């Protein structure tokens, strides 16, 4: 099927940024929030590799992950042109779409506190004109047309093809441009490791310093759900006031993470497609029903709340499925479902469950650390030791009949969980064109 597409010829682009300027002038965007960017491969000019560019904005994918994952239904598709349109008035600024898109198309604007994005110059193309970026390209490297795109149109080093059918045709470098032939008798061989050292570090989209609120929030979800479950089983006391305080704190933590707090209600509009919507919906349901349970002392509310609670734990873990992991492993010991089970087992004092979950978490943890170590990625051995100790000490003491009071043992367990969860964010990231174009990523 033919669709409106960008056509990018890698042989023609010289990285002049006129497309970026053309876009920002047409759309009146802030210079710090360019909808289009020219991404460059091999900026440092590694002698064995070509320097080339990708001018990328939104690729208006057929299976657009921004639209699918947006909890607030802020994205729609313009049926006539195929453009994926972002609606500013509906956006809550949660930035989840900026994680979902592998092309770094949605941009969070700190001034407006919402996301914005290329709209394919939908008005221009509806009028039969070319998008402003295409019009601005002085060498015809960026073009626009109605195309029947194939798989091979997206095969070029450094470009992510995740099967989401982006509307872009990439014309790869010709053979003679793939490896530079340079004559210079003074050229010396440089150790690849050295070059790696010289490369500037890429920016991390998911960074622990930005996401600490999420560390605490997700741990709070696990804590509240396990507490409610243990209480429902009659193993532990639960009062409305302390439960209410923790709940309010948890909600406050999520709200810190979104740009438009007054639109928070929009979080739950996309139950059909977005795990983020499901997370917020199920967690809110859990809080409400638990409140009712505590007020009415009706167990039916309690069971209903637990169902919502379990679903919210699963949702939290699913929310993060779209991130890239440095360890490339499926399971992570810091998943909130596992934390929830561990905390529940402690509070309910089910020793077989405690043993099994400690064993499971321990194995996954050690396995991951080994994987990171083997890949030459920082794995923080001392912190890891502390994390393992936090898992083992309360259990060993329990085993030795040296019982700690529950708050102390829970505090130790929680420290371990927070370390694990913090590592989860530290080791997660989003694919971006910048990262894909790191020279060690596209070398063939």
């Amino acid at each position, binding site marked *: 099927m033919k669709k409106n597409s960008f056509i990018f010829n890698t042989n023609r682009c*010289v990285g002049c940024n006129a497309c970026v*300027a053309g876009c920002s*002038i047409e759309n009146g965007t802030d210079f710090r929030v360019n909808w289009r960017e020219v991404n460059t491969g091999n900026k*440092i000019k590694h002698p064995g590799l070509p320097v080339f560019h990708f001018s990328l904005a939104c690729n208006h994918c057929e299976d657009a992950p921004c639209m699918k994952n947006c909890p607030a239904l802020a994205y729609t598709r313009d049926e006539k042109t195929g453009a994926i349109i972002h609606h500013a008035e509906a956006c809550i600024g949660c930035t989840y779409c900026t994680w979902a898109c592998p092309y770094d198309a949605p941009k969070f604007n700190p001034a407006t506190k919402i996301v914005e994005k290329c709209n394919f110059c939908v008005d221009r193309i509806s009028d039969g004109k070319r998008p402003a970026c295409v019009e601005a390209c*002085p060498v015809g490297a960026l073009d626009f047309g109605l195309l029947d795109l194939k798989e091979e149109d997206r095969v070029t080093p450094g470009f992510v093809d995740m099967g989401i059918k982006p509307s872009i045709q990439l014309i790869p470098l010709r053979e003679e441009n793939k490896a*530079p032939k340079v*004559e210079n*008798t003074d050229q010396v061989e440089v150790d690849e490791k050295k070059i790696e050292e*010289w490369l*500037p570090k890429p920016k991390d989209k998911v960074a622990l310093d930005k996401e600490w609120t999420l560390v605490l929030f997700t741990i709070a979800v696990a804590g509240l759900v396990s507490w409610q479950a243990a209480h429902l089983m009659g193993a532990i006391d639960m009062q409305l006031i302390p439960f209410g305080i923790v709940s309010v704190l948890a909600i406050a933590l999520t709200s810190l993470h979104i740009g438009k707090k007054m639109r928070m209600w929009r979080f739950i509009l996309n139950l059909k497609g977005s795990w983020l919507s499901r997370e917020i919906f199920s967690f809110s349901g859990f809080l409400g029903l638990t409140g009712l349970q505590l007020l009415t002392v009706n167990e039916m509310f309690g069971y209903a709340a637990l169902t919502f609670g379990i679903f919210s734990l699963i949702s939290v873990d699913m929310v993060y499925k779209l991130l890239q992991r440095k360890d490339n492993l499926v399971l992570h010991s810091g998943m909130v479902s596992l934390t929830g089970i561990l905390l529940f087992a402690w509070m309910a004092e089910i020793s077989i469950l405690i043993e099994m979950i400690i064993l499971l978490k321990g194995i996954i943890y050690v396995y991951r650390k080994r994987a990171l170590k083997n890949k030459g990625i920082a794995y923080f051995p001392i912190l890891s030791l502390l994390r393992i100790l936090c898992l083992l000490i309360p259990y060993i003491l329990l085993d030795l009949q040296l019982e700690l009071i529950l708050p102390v043992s829970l505090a130790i367990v929680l420290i371990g969980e927070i370390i694990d969860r913090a590592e989860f964010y530290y080791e997660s990231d989003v694919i971006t064109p910048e990262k894909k174009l790191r020279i060690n990523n596209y070398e063939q």
Partner: protein
Amino acid sequence: MKTYSTACPRNCYSTCSIKVRVENDKVIGIDPHPENRATPEGPCIKGLAYVERANSKERILYPQKRITEGKYERISWDEALNTIAEQLKNCKETFGPHSILYFAASGMSGLLNGVGANFWKLFGGATTTYGNLCWPAGLEATRLTLGANKHNAPWDLENAKLILLWGKNPAETNIQEMIPVEKAQEKAAKLIVIDPRRTPSSERANSLFQIKSGTDAALALGIARELIQNDWIDHEFIEKYVFGFEQFKERVEKYTLDKVSDICRISAEAIQELAKEIGTTDAMTLIPGYGMQRYENGGQTTRCILALSVITGNIGRPGACFHYANLQSYVFDDLKEPESYFPGCEHPSFRRKISVAKLGKDLLNIKDPEVKFIWVERGNPLSQNPDTNKIKKAFRKADFRVVVDQFMTDTTLEADIILPAKNMFEQSDIIGSYWNPYVQLRQKVMEPAGAVKPETEIYYLLAKRLGFTDEEIKGNIPEPNDEAIEEYLNGFLKDFPELSLEQLKKGPQLANSFEEIPFADYQFPTPSGKIELYSELAKEMWGVDELPDYVPLPEQTEFEFQLISPNSKNRIHSQFGNLNVIKQFEPEAFIFVHPLDAEEKEMKNGEKVEIYNHQGRAEVKLQYDMGLRRGNVVLTNGHQSHLGAAPNLFTKGCETDMGHGTAFHNTWVNLKAINNE
């Protein structure tokens, strides 16, 4: 909203035709103008930046008077012009008109620029400069050899089978040239680049010959020797149209492969391979850049390179030419570049004794009279002429300085009075190009912003204040209204029935004299009527060898790094760098250094380092560039010293071997790590 046809008047090859969208006297958009066959896809990022430039809050819109260093205050035109007129009268009476320096540069092209010279002539003369910062060595070399500076139309490049970019980086400096380069490559032409740097243009090439900077002439002569030895030359062409081949053949004898390999630092096999490509490919377009002639040996170097096009017969055919400068659109000039740069051709009232290459030194030394009053328009000599510190000293030695500009620069910061300059949208003028062959109208599309007055009006008002008679003013300085400007321009057009303002308002036009393939008639306006490899004129005028030769640059022991200051895609000299649309990509100057060189000096990427030599010092952030030859460092042209590092803080101010050009790249510096805490 209205759309107008206009053209970009910057000192740039491309001279793009553009369409400008105007709404409520405000520029709101710049669009491509496909009628210009050389720039059909539109301008570069700088052209797009006019939307910001025309509306910038930073623009100088009112006359300004200096309060203290760096501080200016708005004054009225009356106050500004009365003060200037007073100063001019005093200077003239006390020291004579030659105590005034009239300095104009290449900031905006147009026929109306001649009004300035007319004014100063009526004033009784002034001191002016000779020479040029940019390209005269190559122009003179080409003129001496071929007799004229013209080359095939830009779009003919797609017919070439071999494109040799010799020290040119069109991807940054003439971006639309990459269109025919790519078209030729799509038709299997080869692209070869010779450059001490790996550039965006060399990324497109089949191979890059990364020779040592300043040794280009040796390489050319080595190739010539190979061409002759392998009989890859065009005997018939040489026989009929070339003067001095036998002597040239003897000259190249000593440039053996081993010797050249040693000088240029590329392998002997590489030289052979390059010679073979040149000698066995039909239709070579050789495109030298202007950078490689900005050395002391630049003129001779260009003659050596041009000899390759000559002996292989790659002149005057489709796809085959020496593509240095195309002055075909300069139809209104009585005297073309480079001859107009030479002292002696000016009106006798002028004292033309200051070399642009040695502006600071010459200004400090000039006597009888000394320069007391400096007038600068269309230029920023404090950042663009060599040896900034010396020029600053010379400017401060004078009593009074007037600078006309659109934005604050290194030079306006030295002014006693700053006058606001018009921009390209506020007055019509006719411009040519040194690359594409069109005559174009840079059309007035709006009234001047604020209190801006075009230079012609400033001169008109000054002339009135200085008591020039109406008779003198008439014909020399147009009255300040649109009709008078059009009448003045029509004065130039009257000899060209094919060019009318009416037509020019619609788009770019070709003069009848335009040749798509110049020299196809094998007419070479040299003394011998042939292409002169052997030029007596060269010796007579410039004291160089009659034959092209390699003249090594001075041996360097004191400073470790050779500084080259190529042009960047982000600026035309010192223009555009102040705009946000540009600053987002290049917020400040960087010194580019090979990481191994940096490591030896314990300097790291992103850190501030010190650059210094006898001319100056500055601190600047370092950026790794593995595409450089070790020992070469790069600071791009057009950075200004009031904002940090600028290349001309370090340049010495020496002329090229011919043409009175400027040897910017004869510059050596040291680098030092500094405490970044």
